[in-house]
């Protein structure tokens, strides 16, 4: 009889814990949406309520777009993240192919160096890279935002691991068919590796869209600012911190990421299921 309602205690506990974790993760996000929807008076009121008495999202958005050139900053974000990702793929795929499929002297040493490169935090190289860009006269430009990230050792590592799983026969068949080595990278390996490239794309785009540290130190001009800098701008503006528009702006700059992620996630899962079915 006791088995009539087989909802074990452990399953309930598991879900309670998971829901609690999700709530902690989502709380700031929900608070952001809530604040972005409140008028200034409600934001500073002492009582705590999530749903505003008067919806002011449109006002806040209007003010956010009026105060700062948000569209321009979004565009900057897109230019920078897309350039970084494209260049990373252009470097990482041939490098990963060579490390995974070609036999040459010193391959294992090179791969060990790649692994070693993953261990180095970007902050450690920030000063030398900054000086390098200064000497090259590239500070305060798109190039300063993009160039330091074009070689992603993580990307090389990830793609190399994936290429290892592509059968050698496929590469040999391509060679018999007359496809050049670079052709094999782009016409055979890339299509086979779409799920891995998508996964890498999520990491790369999220990391560089949200990057605050590097743009902050290499940029001066307002028109080059990336989205996180733009949000910070609201806080520092002479008129005092206006939280409503700030949160509205934060929502706007997060939106593309969320949308892109939802799209990529679908492709991502598709890729995984495609390789799973046989």
């Amino acid at each position: 009889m006791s088995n009539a309602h087989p909802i074990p205690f452990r399953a309930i506990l598991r879900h309670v814990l998971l829901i609690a974790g999700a709530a902690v993760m989502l709380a700031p996000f929900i608070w952001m949406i809530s604040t972005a929807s409140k008028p200034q008076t409600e934001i500073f009121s002492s009582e705590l309520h999530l749903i505003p008495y008067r919806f002011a999202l449109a006002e806040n958005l209007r003010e956010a777009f009026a105060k700062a050139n948000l569209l321009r900053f979004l565009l900057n974000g897109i230019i920078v993240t897309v350039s970084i990702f494209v260049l990373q793929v252009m470097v990482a795929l041939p490098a990963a192919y060579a490390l995974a499929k070609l036999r040459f002297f010193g391959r294992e040493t090179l791969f060990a160096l790649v692994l070693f490169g993953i261990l180095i935090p970007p902050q450690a190289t920030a000063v030398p890279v900054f000086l390098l860009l200064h000497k090259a006269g590239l500070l305060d430009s798109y190039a300063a935002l993009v160039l330091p990230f074009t070689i992603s050792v993580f990307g090389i590592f990830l793609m190399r691991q994936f290429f290892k799983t592509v059968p050698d026969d496929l590469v040999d068949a391509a060679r018999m068919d007359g496809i050049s080595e670079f052709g094999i990278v782009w016409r055979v390996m890339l299509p086979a590796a779409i799920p891995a490239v998508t996964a890498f794309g999520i990491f790369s785009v999220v990391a560089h869209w949200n990057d605050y540290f590097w743009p902050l130190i290499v940029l001066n001009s307002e028109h080059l600012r990336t989205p996180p800098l733009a949000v910070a701008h609201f806080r520092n503006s002479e008129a005092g911190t206006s939280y409503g528009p700030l949160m509205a702006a934060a929502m706007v700059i997060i939106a593309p990421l969320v949308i892109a992620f939802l799209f990529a996630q679908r492709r991502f899962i598709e890729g995984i299921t495609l390789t799973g079915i046989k």
Partner: protein
Amino acid sequence: MAQIELSAIRKSFDGNDVLKGIDFRIADGEFISLVGPSGCGKSTLLRIIAGLEPQNSGEVHIDGRPVDGIRPSARNLAMVFQSYALYPHLSTFDNIAVPLRMRRLSAIERLPLLGALLPGRRAKERHIRADIEGIAEQLDIAPLLRRKPGQLSGGQRQRVAVGRAMVREPLAFLFDEPLSNLDAKLRVHMRAELAELHRRLKATFVYVTHDQAEAMTMSSRIAVMMGGELIQAGTPAEIYHEPGDIRVAEFIGSPKINVLPGRIRKDGGVDVPGTALKLTCNAAAGDCRIGVRPERIELGTGPFSGTVIHLENLGAEAFVHLAVEGTGSRLIARLADVRHLPAMASSVAFGFAPDAVRLFDPAGKRIELRLEQAERIREPAHV
């Protein structure tokens, strides 16, 4: 159509000699099987012919032209791989089209969007389409042209891989264990289909397999490789009936050839322990090994006796495993008539005709025999 000539091919990986000097000539239009146990270097040899692997020394000539250092595609050979190696993101049609597009279209014409605008491209694509449809018709894969490899069965993928090889009209076809991923029934079917394809195309086929049944049934000649060396080449019948080396004798034929320990007397006569055979040879006195195929063992009569330790009845034929009395060795006899099988654990007399014997020296090399015409095998001396 091409002849392929290999001279003194050597290859080593990390100091391991994989090929130890292979000399071999493949005639125009031949169906050659390279057989041997795994690790004997047969696939490496095929890859050297294809140009996928450079040899350490030696030369490959195709139609009298040295091809060493020439890229795989420029050798104009086609290869079918064990895993079929179809491009998973392309349809069957596009898979077969790849070698044609690579050869007939220029680099600019191959560009995804721009290429389609160029004037010559459409006419060339029309030719490619016609060629592929012709091939698809021949191989019976026309309805599959729009499917992706993931949606095809093993046998269909196999055909597509053959189609991709055929469409370029190569000088020779190279097959690397193409049937080993198929189930047993389909394998037998594809065997017939490949042999039929060879008869129709009259092209040179080089076929690598570890399955001696495939080699025996399809090829015009078999080359047996062991430990990086080519031991013997000949027609399937020659390889089966006149093996030059005990390793060849043991590798070809299922069940394996029976090997009994023997001795060569000073006068050239040959003894199985306790029994003299009606044979003489010119070899020096000493130990030797006597090979007899299972189907040449005659049960019921003969100077030897053994105990039945295992029976395998396959319906059309049966294999009787015997422990030979006096020697401790085991052998297998093939019975064509399954209705009269000896009982398990019973003692059976058996013998074999002198001309069924293949004699090998302790190193495994074949020893030529002379038959003594006059009498049959003598009765055992001690009985």
